[in-house]
């Protein structure tokens, strides 16, 4: 049973209106348990839309989405996945520990069990001493780690991440990538990961899914297995650079006339 199974999915926003957008057309994707899959592609190609479809935050226009062998809707109700976004999206008014406890609270866990799990998650992301601070007292990278802890708190088998490191500086980002790999390996979590960064996609993934816009589709899927024990040296390794080059080539095709792509936002959006 695959972790994610997207079959013949298309998504059209504002169908039949002048503002119609064909965000996704005939997308097929299967993610196996334990796999790390990245979605990459130019802005507006539908990466986030695809992720939201998997998360059942959107309904596909056509096609079907299955998660862990259930419908997407059922697996959302069952909390089969955790989610993290570009903005850590912590709640300012809750302490770090209470932020991590949020999904558990909603599942109705009792207090002690929640506290224990929060402690465990804080140790996992190596921030045990920050439990009682407020989110705004942490640096961006630490906030993002808390957000990951929150996403994993209920031990979901699947993690959905939408550019989670987009707001971090490159050095922190590389550090976070390492951490994410370690955590996912420890918890054996399947990950679908949206990113704009080629090295990030290559470094993290078993497979990189390259997408193109207008309408959004999958143009290529690149296998880049850098092995289980990635570390700082991997980033200087030849197969890392080879992976980068492969993904870049694949993207180049999708990314033709970049000069004025996505121009004139005002006209497009309203």
């Amino acid at each position, binding site marked *: 049973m695959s972790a994610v199974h997207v079959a013949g999915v298309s998504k059209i926003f504002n169908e039949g209106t002048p503002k119609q957008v064909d965000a996704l057309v005939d997308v097929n994707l299967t993610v196996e348990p334990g796999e790390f899959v990245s979605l990459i592609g130019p802005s507006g190609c539908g990466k986030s839309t695809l992720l*939201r479809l998997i*998360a059942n*935050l959107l309904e596909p226009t056509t096609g079907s989405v299955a998660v862990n062998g259930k419908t997407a809707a059922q697996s*959302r*109700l069952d*909390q089969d*996945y*955790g*989610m993290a*976004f570009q*903005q850590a*999206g912590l*709640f*300012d*008014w*809750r302490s770090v520990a209470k932020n991590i406890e*949020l*999904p558990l*609270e*909603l*599942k109705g866990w009792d207090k002690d069990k929640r506290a224990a799990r929060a402690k465990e998650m804080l140790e996992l992301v190596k921030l045990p001493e920050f439990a009682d601070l*407020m*989110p*705004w*007292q942490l640096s961006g990278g630490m906030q993002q780690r808390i957000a990951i802890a929150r996403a994993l708190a209920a031990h979901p088998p699947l993690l959905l991440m939408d550019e989670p490191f987009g707001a971090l500086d490159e050095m922190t980002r590389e550090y976070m990538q390492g951490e994410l790999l370690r955590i996912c390996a420890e918890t054996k979590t399947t990950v679908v990961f949206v990113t704009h960064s080629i090295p990030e996609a290559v470094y993290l993934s078993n497979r990189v899914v390259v997408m193109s816009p207008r309408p959004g589709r999958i143009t290529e899927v690149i296998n880049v297995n850098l092995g289980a024990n990635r570390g700082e040296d991997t980033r200087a390794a030849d197969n890392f650079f080879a992976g980068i080059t492969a993904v870049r080539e694949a993207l180049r095709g999708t990314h033709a006339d970049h000069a004025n792509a996505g121009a004139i936002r005002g006209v497009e959006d309203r």
Partner: protein
Amino acid sequence: MTAMNRLRNFLTPLAFGVAFLAFWEGAVKFFELKPYFLAPPTKILSQFVENISRIWDAASVSGMNALVGLIAGTIFGVSVSFLLSRYRALGELITPLAVALNAIPIFVLVAVLNNMYSITSEVPRRIMVSLVVYFIVLVNVAKGLTQVKSTHVELMRSYAASDFAILKKVRIPNAVPYLFTALKISAPAAVITSFVSEYFGGSQNGLGSRITSNIANSKNAAAWAYVLGACLLGLVFYAVSVVLENVASRGSGATNTSNK
């Protein structure tokens, strides 16, 4: 540096205040302004001291009207904004009215309210204050309840959270700073409204009517002693609301939550 800054934050206004009072006193002395026109600060102060107990009584009457109205208006405003956030259609209906009412001089309704209730009771004044507060609170809190981060809502939906859970865990906490901002605006407004509503008749025991009747009787220094009382009352309301706002925003870390 910080201690120095704090000192400066305290001394500068003090210097300005002293200079202003000195200028006032000087102007009265120099131009020989008649007492019925403008009393010097020293005379006002001595009147204030002399009448302190009467000023206190009058301030407690006006202050009570402002306080009751403030509390009632806030409770009412918060409850209705909950309804509005729950039933969008209701919001579409009421918000334009609330926005419009914030722009019009509704204090003139006191004249009407006085006839709808007994002129001898404080109820019309309190209702007037409540109305003013209500609309300020409504507009702000409704904004706080609806203008939540989309990431937060999406996250809650990914947890399969109910609408009620979203209200409780996202919308309400998000609206708290807005509520206190509204309080900061409405606290002084409540005091001022309570004075102005004494303008249209009723019991003559509040600061507003004391001020007008003293002015009518050419007892200017006494009138300004009551004005001083009125300023102090307004400042107390304002200060309390600022303190509350700071307490409320300490948890959320956002130092400038004031948002209109």
